[in-house]
């Protein structure tokens, strides 16, 4: 996840906020929006609808593609009154999250709102997700076992 929008990644910023929204909880998005922004009137273009997406991988990371399995994905596309179109694809079946994420994606494309929304909605969500990841990593790290005995025997 990078903030800088280089010439090779014209949508890096949008990609980042969509990723954050896709991982965020519907309740969290709603709370932050309520506090900091006014929801625009919008039309649902498609969905929210749940479906299955085939997740594909590559053997050994770069070999032949294979189907790993299907996952449930909910998608939604909306158009705000101002004409911005927002999309969201989120894992799971939470249609409220998909719809809110699509609306926020549309709002973030309005240059007048981008900066403020980014600071007051996306960043807090990203911080929360980062804290959660760090927390899990810390818990996992605490269970790490150093096999001193085995290492000593082998060397």
């Amino acid at each position, binding site marked *: 996840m990078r903030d800088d929008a280089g010439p090779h990644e014209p949508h890096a910023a949008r990609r980042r906020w969509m990723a954050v929204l896709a991982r965020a909880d519907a309740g969290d998005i709603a709370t932050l929006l309520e506090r900091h922004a006014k929801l625009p009137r919008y039309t*649902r*273009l*498609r969905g929210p*609808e749940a479906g299955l997406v085939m997740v594909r991988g590559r053997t050994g990371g770069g070999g032949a593609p294979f189907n790993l399995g299907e996952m449930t994905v909910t998608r939604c*596309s909306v*158009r705000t009154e101002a004409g*911005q*179109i927002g999309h969201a694809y989120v894992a799971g079946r939470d249609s409220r999250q998909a719809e809110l994420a699509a609306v926020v994606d549309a709002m973030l494309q309005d240059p007048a709102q981008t900066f403020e929304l980014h600071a007051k909605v996306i960043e807090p969500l990203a911080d929360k997700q980062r804290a959660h990841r760090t927390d899990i990593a810390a818990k996992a790290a605490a269970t790490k076992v150093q096999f001193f005995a085995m290492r000593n025997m082998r060397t």
Partner: protein
Amino acid sequence: MSATTLQPGFADPVAGAQACFRAVLDAMARPGRIHEAGIGLEPPAPLAPATAAVLLTLLDYDTPAWLDPAAHAARDWIAFHCGAPIVTDAAACGFGVALSLPPLGSLPAGTHEAPETAATLVLQVTALGRGRRFRLAGPGLLVPAILAVDGLPDTFAAAWQENYALFPRGIDIVLCAGTSLAALPRSVSVQEA
């Protein structure tokens, strides 16, 4: 993707597509009968509600679609809602979308081994139920039916008879106007009445 032209599809995708599929099925089974489709749909210009409903119902990522130049304004809408790949070569399409009659020979008519690979032409006309009258005869019709279509060229009956002569190959046409549709399956013979 143009922000101003993108309109929603069916309000209820499942029920909407099922109702329209039924209309197309009945229209194919009884050529010349006019059915309603796409009521309540707000498609982008230049598509009529019935045309849009047929596209939403029949097209998906497996069906390459060819659009005649007049229908290109709706390209984004079709790509977004149907997910169909848009092809520029009419001979490679599964569905043709046209606002005026293209040369029927330009669309794939299938092969004798696989006649089901022929294209279906979704043709938007000015009106159904008035205009030039055609006498239809063939499977599904106990007695010849009369279908009036406004917006087909003088040469249509002759062009269609060429397509009819290819049976079991040949293309099928779904005629759409406003919120009504009728179908001309390849098995039906069309004469000016």
